[in-house]
């Protein structure tokens, strides 16, 4: 089966032939791939080179934590790729975005207000949890369309805090 794995714009063509062999960018490699202790830790022997990484499928890409470095890898099979390429339009930056609490905590400040335009990376809310003040930032630019919490509020995990359009 053929896959395209992409990291920061660089693509690797990876063909999983059968158990024990893959083709990576045309290079034939012997592979022994094992999960360790039934956990998302994987030990890989690739042409006898030994690698170990935490690998977990995130929402959009696969996270690989390897030798102290995090790689976000987008993996698609050929069919998915063709599909995406033919339907590629500017879907990003559209619709409403709801900021939810990544953990329970207390709202310290809400430095934005309804109607305000914000840039990507701007602080939307400061949430105190685990004795730390955590800045929740805008994942994209947009306009604040709703603020559902006020400083001092106790919030639960995943509670909606603020919306952005």
């Amino acid at each position: 089966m053929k896959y395209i794995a992409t990291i920061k714009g660089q693509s690797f063509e990876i063909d999983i032939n059968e158990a024990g062999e893959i083709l990576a960018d045309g290079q034939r490699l012997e592979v022994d791939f094992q999960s360790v202790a039934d956990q998302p830790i994987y030990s890989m022997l690739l042409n006898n080179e030994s690698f170990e990484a935490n690998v977990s499928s995130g929402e959009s890409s696969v996270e690989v934590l390897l030798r102290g470095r995090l790689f976000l890898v987008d993996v698609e099979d050929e069919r998915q790729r063709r599909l995406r390429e033919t339907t590629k339009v500017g879907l990003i930056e559209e619709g409403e975005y709801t900021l939810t609490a990544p953990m329970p905590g207390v709202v310290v400040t809400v430095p934005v207000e309804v109607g305000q335009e914000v840039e990507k990376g701007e602080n939307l809310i400061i949430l105190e949890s685990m004795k730390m003040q955590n800045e929740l930032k805008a994942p994209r630019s947009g306009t604040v369309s709703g603020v559902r919490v006020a400083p001092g509020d106790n919030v639960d995990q995943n509670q909606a805090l603020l919306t952005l359009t």
Partner: protein
Amino acid sequence: MFTKVLVANRGEIAVRVIRACRELGLNTVAVYSEVDRNSMHVRQSDEAYLLGPPAAKDSYLRGDKIIEIAKKAGAGAIHPGYGFLAERDDFAEAVQEAGLVFIGPKPSAIAAMGDKAAARATVAAAGIPVIPGTDGDAILTDEDLIALAPDIGYPLVVKASAGGGGRGMREVKVPDELPGLLQAARREAEAAFGDGNVYLEKLLLDARHIEFQIMADSHGNAIHLGERECSLQRRHQKLLEEAPSPIMDDTLREQMGKLACRVAEAVDYVNAGTVEFLVDGDRNFYFLEMNTRLQVEHPITEMVTGIDIVREQIRIARGRKLNYRQEDLQLNGWAIECRINAEDPYNNFLPSTGQITTVIPPSGPGVRVDTGVYAGFTITPYYDSLISKLICWGETRGVAILRMRRALEEYRILGVRTNIPFHQKLLNSPRFMAGQFDTRFVEERFTMEEEFDGDDNLAMIAAVMATLVTHRETQQAAQIVRQSERDTSNWKWVGRWERMQR
């Protein structure tokens, strides 16, 4: 003399104190909040009492309840660990009034060092250099402070008198900002400590945070155990500490160590404490504050001195003389501590909670792991994010760094995100390796962003691993579909079978 100790804390430090008690043959009493029933400290203690709901104010900050439990359990002493009640002079006082021993300094010493502005005054009066700033422990209004600011010079820092942990603190670059930031600092200080008083201090650039561990017994002996280099911080939270400091030499150590002991003597200090200094680029040093308790990073001093600091704390509280004289002490090798926090270094260091599913700690020569967690334990959002301290010792700084690197690479914690990759990156940075950093290094010169290199072999490896996992998951999903098809046919079969039975 007490033979049972109540440990008024949780997490790794409660475990650390329990271990020291055990090794002294003392019984231990743990206290815990509702979410900590299965904590290591509850499991390892001889007795354990529930304090209340998870929030610290309903549990670990309930000094009254803790004293009551100590009396009920027959504990003769209370060890506060760090944080929570460790630097509350009213708690220390109440412990003594209840006829129990507080394993720490006298309430008066805690109070004297607790008000940061007053401490500056006390220490300056004893002839110790302090950072230029507003003098004395008088309460100053905004107008007073604005008038005094030009004498101190810019940039400067507004600090909360009752402060700690960076709260109620603001950096001021130009005079115009001062009035607004004074108010912000006061508000934050009032919220955090119930005390809106602030003072001004000159902002030292290129400064290092260097602290001295001191120990004093009740017989008038005070010694220092050398320094710790704690400049690597993020938002005033220490992340990596080492002992000794790369900039230290014997002369400066002796000079600063002596002054640290003098600071302790100025407040009639007993037990373990830490005197923090800022050291500027010209090796001028200034008293910053004194922490009147056991420090998170005490193990690196233990590794280079061979002294069990917690055991000494307990011995001192039992009225014993110090086991060591200053001239007996010798620093041996180098130690580094990495604080392993449950937080995501790739997402603005956001705390991470959840159940830990796997822990494979590093080990081998020169490696120590102090922790309160294990596979199956759940990290809750109620307390700080420190889950483990990884400490490595080597004959030289180089050996300690190499050992820490391999220990970090070996460490596996799953279920929550940790800052291990941060430490790995930090330990690989040329400036860290060269020992060239100051307190602003992590925030200003360090980033987790990768400069992506086109022919990076590791990227290809990551791509292969991600693909293999995706492939597996696809295969398994397909199998589950097939499985449920079979199930359906089983059900059909059951249906048929039932019809036949009618």
